[in-house]
C-alpha cells in the first residue's frame, strides 16, 4: 500500500470511529468489489446514469412485523457464499415488476391453492390445478411451491415457479398453516388426507385475523414408505405402530435435536442479519404500497 492509500485508510477509520460511515463486517472470502464503494460510484455525478434514491423516505418507513413472513422470497440467502447484492437487487426489481401483473397472495405450507397455468397443448390454452401446498422454497426469482392432489386414484404433485410468466393466477382457497414445514410424508399417508375437490369454494377469513394453524396428526399408511417418516421428527404425523429396532430408536431420539433449540450461533448463521432484512423489507414496503393490491385477508 502506498502512502496515499495509507492516509486515506487512516481517514476512513477516523470517520468510522466518529460514526459517519456505518461499520460492516466483511468476511474474508467475499468478492473483491466492495458493495458500498460500488453503490457510491453508481450514485456519483460522474456516472452516466446516476441512481437517485429517496434517502429521506427510506428512513421514515416502518416495516410491519409480519412482512418477514408475508414476503419471505425477497429475503436473501443466509449463506454468505451465495450472496451477491447486485444480483439480489436486480432479481427484486423483476419480482416487483411481475407482482404488478399478477396478484401473488400470502400462503403457507398446508394451504390449499388453485393455480391457472398457460398451456399451449390445452384447447382452452389454460389448465387449472387445485392442490394442497406441501412445500415452498423461497429463493428470489426461483421461488417454487409444490401442490399435491389425489385425482381418480392417482396421487399427483406439480411444482410451480411462482414468478414464471406462464402462471396466469394463483388463488388461495383455504389459508392455513400446518405443524411441519414440509409435508412430503403425505405420499405415504392414506389418500383422503391429500384429496381436494377441484370445485372447492374459497374460504374467506375475517380481516385482521391470525393465520389458522391446522394441528391435524395424519396417520401413516402401510409400509413400504418413501422414507422412514416415523423416525424423523414430524409433528404432523401420528406415531406409527411399528416396533423400532435399537438403531431406529436412537435415530428417533436424536431426530428431535433438543440441543438445537437454543443454539444461538447456529440460528445466527442460518438467519439473515436483521439490518439486511430491514433494508430489503423497506424496499418491499415502498414498492408494494405504490400500487394497491388486495390481499384476501387484509383490507
Amino acid at each position: 500500500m502506498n502512502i496515499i492509500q495509507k492516509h486515506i485508510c487512516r481517514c476512513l477509520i477516523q470517520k468510522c470511529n466518529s460514526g459517519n460511515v456505518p461499520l460492516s463486517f466483511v468476511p474474508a472470502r467475499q468478492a473483491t468489489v466492495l458493495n458500498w464503494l460500488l453503490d457510491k460510484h453508481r450514485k456519483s455525478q460522474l456516472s452516466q446514469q446516476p441512481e437517485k434514491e429517496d434517502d429521506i423516505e427510506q428512513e421514515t418507513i416502518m416495516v410491519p412485523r409480519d412482512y418477514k413472513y408475508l414476503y419471505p422470497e425477497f429475503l436473501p440467502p443466509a449463506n454468505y457464499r451465495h450472496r451477491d447484492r447486485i444480483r439480489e437487487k436486480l432479481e427484486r426489481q423483476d419480482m416487483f415488476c411481475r407482482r404488478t401483473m399478477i396478484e401473488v397472495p400470502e400462503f403457507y405450507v398446508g394451504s390449499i391453492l388453485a393455480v391457472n397455468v398457460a398451456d399451449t397443448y390445452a384447447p382452452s390454452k389454460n389448465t387449472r390445478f387445485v392442490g394442497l401446498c406441501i412445500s415452498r422454497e423461497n429463493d428470489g426469482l426461483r421461488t417454487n411451491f409444490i401442490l399435491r392432489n389425489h385425482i381418480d386414484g392417482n396421487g399427483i404433485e406439480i411444482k410451480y415457479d411462482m414468478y414464471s410468466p406462464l402462471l396466469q393466477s394463483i388463488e388461495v382457497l383455504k389459508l392455513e398453516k400446518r405443524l411441519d414445514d414440509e409435508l412430503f410424508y403425505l405420499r405415504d399417508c392414506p389418500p383422503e388426507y391429500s384429496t381436494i375437490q377441484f370445485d372447492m369454494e374459497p374460504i374467506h377469513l375475517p380481516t385482521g385475523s391470525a393465520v389458522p394453524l391446522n394441528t391435524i396428526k395424519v396417520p401413516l399408511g402401510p409400509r413400504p414408505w418413501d422414507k422412514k417418516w416415523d423416525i424423523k421428527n414430524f409433528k404432523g404425523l401420528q406415531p406409527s405402530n411399528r416396533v423400532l429396532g435399537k438403531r431406529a430408536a436412537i435415530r428417533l431420539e436424536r431426530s428431535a435435536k433438543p440441543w438445537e433449540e437454543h443454539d444461538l450461533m447456529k440460528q445466527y448463521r442460518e438467519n439473515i442479519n436483521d439490518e439486511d432484512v430491514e433494508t430489503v423489507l423497506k424496499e418491499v414496503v415502498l414498492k408494494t404500497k405504490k400500487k394497491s393490491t388486495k390481499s384476501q385477508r387484509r383490507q
Partner: protein
Amino acid sequence: MTGSDHIFPGKLIAYTSSLDLNLLQKTLNQTCNHFTTICSKRLNIREEEQCFLHNKLFSTSQCLMELRLRSRVRVIDNSPIGKAAATAGKPGKIMHVYNVAAVGRIGDKVMINIMGQKKKGYIVGCRQKQKTNVPRFDTNNVVLVEDSGTPTGTRIRHPLPSCLRQKRYGEKHSGEFTKILSIATKFV
C-alpha cells in the same frame, strides 16, 4: 476381531497353516482399516450412513425412482390384461426401454412383461422427480399398445399429463400417441 470369522470359513483352515492364517488375518485387517479410513475421509460419510459389508464400504446414491429394466408398472387403461394383472397382484415389469439411455421417462415406449405376455406400452406417469409444470405421479403408469399401434384398452379413466399433447411425442412415434390421447378422458 469378529470380521475374521466371516472371512475364514472352516474349509480354509484345513489347507493353510496357522502362521499363514495369522499373516492373512493381519494383512486383511490392515487393508480393511486403511480402506475404511480413506473412504470415511474422502467420501465424508458419517458413521450412520456408512454401508458395511464384511468391513468394506460402498456409497449409495439417492433413491432416483428411475424406470429401468424390471421396474414394476401400473396399467391404467381398461384393457382386460391390465385388470387381470392388478387383481392377481402381478404388476407388469419393464423388459426393454426404447431409449438410448436405458431410463424411461414420460412419453417413452417400453416393452413390458405382463401376465407372462410381452406387450408394448407408453409411460404416461413417472414417480421420478419432474421439471416444473410437469406432474409427478405416485405410481408409474403405463398405457398398453399393440404391435400395430392401436391401444389395447378402449378408455383411460386416469389423468394423463398435459405435456403428452405435444407434437414431438406424436412425431416420434408416428401417430401412435394421437390414438392414446383420443381415448384419454382427463388431463392434468
